């Protein structure tokens, strides 16, 4: 097949290139028309996925400088020094559209791709976190997708031997036609082994190793990843990529050996855009060019057209720049690991990517009679690709209809009236959104590597660093529920929660990676959501003093049923200097005091409670005070550092009542607390206003803890103590005020639920929602 055989007219349109872009391409080529091969290369490299043409301008506004940052946006992954000559590499990336087409392979190759971004830099991958989002768990298609995605993440990660230690699983109607699969990976490296994706040194060899090249994902970057997705579209079927985790494992070992032995000048993984992307990005970063010897590229099957070879997304391949005298050793390493390896070109000084058929002579010049099929400036494909200033327009009505399940109008079904808080708590704990994720994460190997101190299930993941007293702490969070109403707030809350989850272990967040999942950027309203999301991300990171070290943008997340709720997925890695000081969320011992730090503020919109019970139309999401958030995180790190804290949990999904229930269930210890009412019982018990912590401590430490909170300007209240076999929450005499009062609701009844009920409900909720359990 040749470009000309692709369906539909005219050629550049078929390849997703607009007339405006074709002009811009001519412009980059000194006025001439691109030939078919060149056009195919541009179509891939100028796709949204590879070029960031709609988001680049926004991303430039993000803070990227920070203590210890040695590689930031622009590299395959962010790298931050952690001392002792060690550094961590981390990055999150999406594989939404491929996973919607073929959930197992889509998710599996998503894991493979992000792992390559990590070991390309010289880091050994030590952890994966998967952030997954689907529609209605009762829907057969959702169940099919979720089952395939989870098997895919496990099938790949388990086999390569990288533990999956955390992630997210969120259900929201807006993902029904467009699930989200975001995967974060973390690697550990010796800083001296840091390797960049550049092809320096004209005359150096360009070496391709790993799997042979087949027809996988032809057009993937330009079609699969950039066109609005309608499921079961046959035109997308031929381009399904199949992952081979076994090959990836060999690739990891071979790549790290090449780097540790100093055998490569630069290394780049092959992802979207295949050989075209790898050669043009590495050449452009080094200010060089590359001449590609097309015939030298190992093929999996006969009859591939030049454009297929150049844009194929066959998985498990790497591209290295190698000094000629080191080639024999490089070949030996690859062959020992059973990987095909070939010299597929030379680094040149002319700044162009040239594609030659008919071979190169020993000096890397086209052999006599050889044909030059394409010649394009490397920069034109990458740093000088087209950039758009899209139009952003806020929606006319800033507040959608009531949250799902809400009454059409302010009615008697309003939560405060006749609410049985115990029943609501159990309903929340058993709901698909808040119940235990065990049924999913037990399909992952979370302990391979023998570093997992805290795996999935109870907050942030904790990995000790062998040979040191230190540990890495990681979390992913994304808030679409509030983002749907206010995309700035949704993004800021996502950063606040992800960093808070790290801080409450005692660890210091080091940096932020992010995956921005939004709709069609050519729709002003969708682009406004993206712009607001990036603004919220930047504001939150500045307030917390954290650099954004990398990430990924996934646009066109729309289906016939509409666009997804804006979803900024945030990944954070932190450092704990002494793993012995690690604090977890579970209550530790009877008699300990329970302390609530932070302030409960009104606003139920976007809460788990709202999806369950509905919410008044006029109600808004709770606000976020970024300075307050920064203070509370500084406070908890200091408190833990001073050994004052027995357990620490933040108030998030399900509010204070759910936070207390988790501390109790996980500790196997009940609690008796009294909470003052703010606004209404629903707000006090189930409201999700941010920047709040539930701590437990030895009773004798309580005063010091409270003093420290005051010194950080934080409201703090001793609300009860640990003990007994049940969670008991009494409503303080603070008295119902405001909305609740007008609606004639009194103080809600006390809540008393035995631990056994809490645990059983929480434990089985998800498996039941998915029909995996009766």
């Amino acid at each position: 097949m040749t470009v000309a055989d692709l369906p539909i007219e005219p050629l550049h349109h078929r390849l997703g290139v607009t007339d405006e872009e074709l002009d811009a391409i001519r412009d980059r080529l000194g006025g001439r028309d691109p030939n078919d091969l060149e056009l195919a290369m541009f179509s891939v490299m100028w796709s949204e996925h590879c070029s960031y043409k709609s988001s680049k301008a926004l991303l430039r506004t993000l803070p990227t400088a920070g203590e210890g940052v040695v590689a930031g946006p622009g590299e395959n992954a962010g790298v931050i020094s952690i001392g002792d000559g060690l550094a961590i590499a981390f990055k999150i990336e999406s594989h939404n559209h491929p996973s919607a087409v073929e959930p197992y392979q889509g998710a599996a190759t998503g894991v493979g791709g992000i792992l390559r971004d990590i070991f390309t830099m010289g880091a050994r991958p030590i952890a994966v976190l998967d952030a997954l989002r689907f529609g209605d768990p009762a829907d057969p298609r959702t169940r099919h997708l979720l089952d395939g995605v989870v098997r895919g993440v496990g099938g790949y990660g388990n086999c390569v031997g990288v533990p999956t230690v955390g992630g997210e699983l969120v259900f929201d109607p807006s993902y029904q036609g467009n699930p989200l699969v975001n995967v974060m990976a973390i690697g550990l490296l010796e800083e001296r082994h840091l390797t960049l994706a550049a092809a320096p040194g004209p005359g150096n060899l360009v070496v391709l190793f790993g799997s042979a090249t087949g027809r996988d994902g032809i057009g993937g970057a330009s079609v699969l990843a950039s066109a609005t997705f309608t499921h079961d579209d046959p035109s997308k079927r031929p381009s399904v990529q199949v992952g081979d985790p076994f090959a990836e494992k060999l690739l990891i070992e071979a790549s790290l050996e090449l780097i540790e032995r100093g055998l490569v000048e630069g290394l780049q993984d092959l992802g979207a855009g295949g050989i075209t992307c790898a050669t043009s990005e590495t050449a452009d970063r080094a200010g060089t060019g590359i001449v590609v010897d097309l015939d030298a590229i190992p093929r999996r099957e006969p009859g591939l057209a030049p454009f297929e070879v150049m844009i194929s997304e066959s998985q498990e391949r790497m591209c290295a720049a190698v000094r000629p005298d080191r080639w024999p050793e490089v070949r030996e390493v690859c062959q020992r690991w059973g990987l095909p390896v070939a010299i597929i070109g030379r680094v040149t000084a002319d700044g162009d990517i040239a594609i030659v058929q008919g071979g190169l002579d020993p000096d890397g010049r086209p052999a006599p009679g050889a044909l030059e099929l394409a010649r394009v400036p490397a920069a034109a494909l990458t740093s000088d690709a087209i950039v758009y200033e899209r139009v952003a327009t806020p929606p006319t009505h800033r507040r959608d209809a009531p949250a799902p399940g809400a009454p059409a109008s302010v009615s008697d079904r309003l939560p405060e009236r006749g609410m049985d808080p115990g029943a609501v708590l159990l309903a929340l704990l058993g709901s698909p959104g808040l119940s235990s994720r065990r049924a999913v994460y037990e399909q992952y190997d979370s302990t391979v590597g023998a570093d997992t101190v805290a795996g999935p299930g109870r907050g942030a993941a904790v990995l000790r660093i062998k040979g040191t007293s230190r540990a890495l702490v990681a979390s992913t969070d994304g808030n679409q529920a509030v983002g749907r109403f206010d995309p700035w707030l949704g993004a800021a809350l996502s950063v606040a929660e992800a960093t808070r989850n790290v801080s409450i272990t005692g660890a210091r967040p080091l940096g932020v990676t992010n995956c921005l999942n939004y709709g069609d950027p050519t729709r002003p309203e969708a682009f406004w959501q993206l712009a607001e999301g990036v603004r919220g991300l930047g504001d939150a990171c500045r307030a917390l003093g954290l650099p954004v070290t990398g990430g990924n943008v996934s646009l066109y997340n729309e289906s016939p049923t509409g666009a997804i709720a804006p979803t900024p997925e945030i990944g954070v890695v932190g450092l704990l200097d002494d793993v012995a000081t690690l604090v977890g969320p579970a209550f530790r011992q009877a008699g300990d005091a329970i302390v609530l730090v932070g302030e409960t503020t009104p606003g139920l919109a976007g809460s788990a409670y709202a999806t369950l019970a509905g919410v008044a139309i006029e109600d808004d999401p709770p606000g976020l005070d970024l300075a307050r958030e920064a203070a509370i995180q500084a406070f908890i790190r200091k408190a833990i550092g001073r050994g004052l804290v027995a357990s620490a949990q933040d108030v998030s999904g399900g509010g204070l009542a759910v936070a207390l229930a988790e501390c109790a269930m996980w500790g196997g210890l009940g609690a008796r607390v009294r909470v003052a009412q703010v606004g209404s019982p629903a707000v006090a018990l189930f409201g999700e206003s941010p920047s709040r912590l539930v701590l437990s401590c030895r009773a004798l430490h309580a005063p010091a803890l409270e003093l420290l909170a005051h010194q950080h300007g934080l409201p703090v209240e001793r609300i009860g103590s640990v003990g007994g076999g049940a969670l008991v929450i009494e409503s303080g005499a603070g008295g119902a005020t405001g909305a609740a009062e007008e609606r004639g609701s009194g103080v809600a009844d006390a809540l008393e639920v035995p631990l056994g009920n809490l645990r059983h409900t929480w434990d089985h909720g998800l498996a039941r929602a998915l029909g995996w359990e009766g």
Partner: protein
Amino acid sequence: MPVRVGVVVFPGSNCDRDTLHALAMAGAEPVALWHEQATLEGAAAVVLPGGFAYGDYLRAGVIARFSPIMRAVAGFAASGGLVLGICNGFQVLAEAGLVPGALLRNASLRFTGREVSISAERLDTAFTHALVAGGPLRMPVAHGEGCYYADEATLDALERDGQVLFRYVDPSGELVGPDHPANPNGSLRAIAGVMNAAGNVAGLMPHPERAAEAILGSADGMGIVRSLVESAAKAAAAPARPARPAPPAELAAPAQFGAAVS
């Protein structure tokens, strides 16, 4: 002078480094043995680690069984050498016929990664003597094909001859049936680990090397690792055995056979 214990590295092994780490903590001199080498470099014991050798394609462990080093391992085992297979290593040993039985797909048809409790049936073996009697051992499993199978007669014989080394139990240490959640994969008679008749080759599905330090949630696995290291030290001290390279017949055959075909 620490005793040398070998850890075989197949392409796709992914617990080799964890195992080397645990062996070092137990006082051994761990050495990695590449699957293509023909000798065991004088190791006094050999561990086949967990992972996905050759991707576990076809059937877990079957392709690895034909790696060159497996001839040396088979010969070493035949002459009484200590061999321990963990998870994927157990699968390789079973495929190679060095321990009885087979490991089928988990009854759930899903990969299962979680902590389990196992009890040692015997504390007088080369692999368990350093375990303290009593309570169940907590350690992780992480596998998709760990359902232990052998026919009834074989199972009876294994129990009679004391070749059942570990069983899955509930957290209180009680034995459970194949359908009980404490049995993570549906293994017949809740068998988690077995030995060969001679008692020098053993395999188990759970991962002692991942439960060898309190910081990781359990140090129960260290007793198994230490048992192996101490037994290896004894073996090393004893007068050297005649190393008898006696690989199973079908392992000896290939060379000429290939020639005949070509």
